[in-house]
């Protein structure tokens, strides 16, 4: 199962990279399903007015990872999966210094751009294999790799771990 998911993710990554090669100049495809994430601000590949919008399928096609870890907001070991933040930003052609990650309830947190590049941060869209509803902190949850580096397990990164994300604004 795990291998299958990996294969799926790899295929997704391949599709994206070839897509990037062929349709670099073109705008991002329009999301077929409900938009669950919007990248605004300094983005070059857009599919709506000045923004790059993604539905669940688009996000799941991107290169990502699946990780099991403990977080302050969940009970016990929890498995998160979703695309790398850098993959999403690349898909939107985003560049800048920081990200303002905004939640459904207008909670917002500033995340340095390099957290996306240097850390394996993912935009989790599935928890324990299931899509996350708003009630379950969905639809998108920024997850730091607490499993890889325990030194990240502190308030600084807790506050950056925004859930119920609806929009990421890329600031120059």
């Amino acid at each position, binding site marked *: 199962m795990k291998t299958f998911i990996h294969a799926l993710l790899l295929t997704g990554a391949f599709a994206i990279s070839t897509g990037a090669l062929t349709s670099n100049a073109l705008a991002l495809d329009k999301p077929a399903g409900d938009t669950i994430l919007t990248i605004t601000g300094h983005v070059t590949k857009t599919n709506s007015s000045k923004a790059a919008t993604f539905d669940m399928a688009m996000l799941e096609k991107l290169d990502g990872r699946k990780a099991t870890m403990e977080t*302050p907001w969940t009970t016990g070991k929890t498995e998160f999966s979703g695309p790398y933040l850098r993959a999403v930003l690349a898909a939107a052609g985003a560049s800048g210094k920081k990200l303002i990650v905004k939640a459904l309830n207008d909670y917002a947190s500033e995340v340095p751009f390099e957290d996306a590049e240097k850390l394996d941060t993912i935009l989790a869209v599935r928890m324990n294999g299931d899509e996350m*509803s708003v009630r379950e902190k969905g639809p998108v949850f920024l997850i730091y790799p607490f499993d890889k580096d325990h030194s990240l397990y502190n*308030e600084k990164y807790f506050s950056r771990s925004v859930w119920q994300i609806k929009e990421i604004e890329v600031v120059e």
Partner: protein
Amino acid sequence: MSARGDKISDVLKRASLRAAVLQAFSVVLLVILILLYMDMSDRQASLQNSIRENAMWAAFQLDREAHELETETRLLLAAPEVEQGQLKALSRRYDIVYSRNDLLSQGHFQGFFVQSGDLSASSIAIGQIVKSLDHVFTGLEKSTDARTRLTAVLPALDALHDETNKLLLTSNTVISDNRAQARDDLIHLQKTSGIYVFLLTLSVGFLIFTLRRQLKAVRQAGQGFEAMANDLASAYNAADAGNRAKSQFMATMGHEIRTPLNAILGTAELLELSDIPDDVRDNIRTIRSSGEALLEVLNEILDYSKIEYGKLEIELRPANLPELAHTVMDIMASRAKERGNALVLDMPDQLLHPWIKTDPTRLRQIILNLVSNATKFTRNGTVTLRLREFSGPNGRQFVRIEVQDTGIGIDEAGRKKLFKPFSQVDASISRRFGGTGLGLTISKEIAERLGAQMGVESEIGKGSTFWLEMRIEATDAPEIASPSERPTGFAPLHSLKVLLVEDNKVNQQLALRFLERLGQKADLATNGAEAVKVATARTYDLILMDMQMPVMDGIEAARAIRAGQGPNRTSPIIAMTANASDEDRDACREAGMNGFEPKPITLKRLHSVLAGVAKRSETAPAPTTLPDNDAFGASEDGIDPARKAELVEVLGEEIFDELVASFFADADALMTEYRDARAAGDRHAADKALHTLKGAAANVGFNAVANIAQAIRQSPEAPDRTDQLTALLASYTFNKAA
């Protein structure tokens, strides 16, 4: 010193006690450090703190979302038209409230909201209200009676908002309490830490203090030891000096006693030869044997004191084992006979190594001692001297010398004491057989010095076997028979009247001893004038004339005797000089002398001179050329070994030593004389001093000294070599004293 030792041990004891306390304190210190670290590293508290902060935030967020939901609902109900999008947004608001409520029972906050009754009640109430609203808000946008449903839940939303507000306030109270508690904990921790740090400081202080004291104690002990070492060193030096003085005293006394004893023995021997009644002869024999016993005891004591004094000298040279054995047999024959013992020599006809390198005098001393002991403790039995060669491990050659007797034997206890100084098997032995009990100690000491092993096997009543094993260092027979193998007996000579004319004391002694040895009685004149005077009063068969003398030299004296009317007008006069030039020879002949003997004179030459005179031969003995001094070897003490061997053989070691000592005394005086003369520009006097020095040096065997003295004489204008000569003499004197 004992008091000091006590003090040091006291200091050390206290120091070690302090060290123990120090160690205990260090352990305590370590424990305190570990405790402190554990206390400090308890980071649980800080994590709790962060959870509290987050919980507060969660409560605040929930309250805010509940408020939003209520406000939105009211706004929606107040509006005339309700759009589907607005309903959907309201439903999402509810979802957010739902997720916020969910969070209270999850993750970090699980524990927090159940810790106090109020909090727990609030969160349970909130949970119930949120769940009860679920059916209203789920699928709200699709429902047809949205407005009715929303109106119905307004009181519940109010209640929710009240509850979340209560939760927020209670949380705040709880958190404040917790914070206060945390602060108290912190203060407590600080206090405990303070105490620990205080203890730590105390410990370190004590540590430093104790270390200081420890160092001081160690230093004190060190000083004590140093002082003790000094005391010991000076005590040792004092003891050693005392011991040396004692040994020196014994050596001197021994020598002082031996000289008259030799005279007594000699006289007794002469008396025995004369025509006397038998009872008197017996008495004299008693005197002689007692004297000989005394001499033996004396020699042993002297040897022992030499061993103690570290002055026992070993001189290795070729020695002939069979001859050595025969000599011992000869010497011991009469004594063995006296006690009815048969003395047997058991030795192979042919030895593989008849010549070995050893100290023959000392080896003979050991064997003589063993045979003498065997004879002493055996009556009417057999004493066997056995000599065998054998191969040891690694193909080394050894010789085993055994002295076996059929005497009283020695038991095991006795054998253990045997080689210890002044010990005889038991006191009764001393009474019965006499002796110092030093013989075996000395023998063993000498054997060790010769690299030999000594031991004994014995059985009470059956006899004893003393053995000595030594490694053979084979050597060739020396070209000139070594002194010990030199025929000791010359053809007997008629007793002649000899006048010795010699100014130098060393030469006087030497010549007189040689003459004595050859059975001659000599008169002594210390210069030419004296000689002329004596020669007018008495007739001599031979006049031995030194050449260079104060007052009147040899040439002048010879001339005066020949020219005078005294009884020695025609007596043979033989010149003795270290100068062997043709010029000197001519001068001698011209002065009417009959012969010419180069110095140093040897026993053999003296014998042939005397023999020639005895035959009344008119021709003088063939002049001998002065031996090439360079051909002589020189040993460490500067004395030519061959000459030394000869002199020791003839004179005995003590007299030889005495001779050497008086040579050094003379040499000092002569050097002073020479320097004074040289300073005064008296070339003749300087040359004379050198001449005398050269003669005396050659006589005793200091060839190097003789050579330099001669070299200075031959070229007095050459660079001054006096210093070299002085240095050489000084180094020999030093070696002698060392």
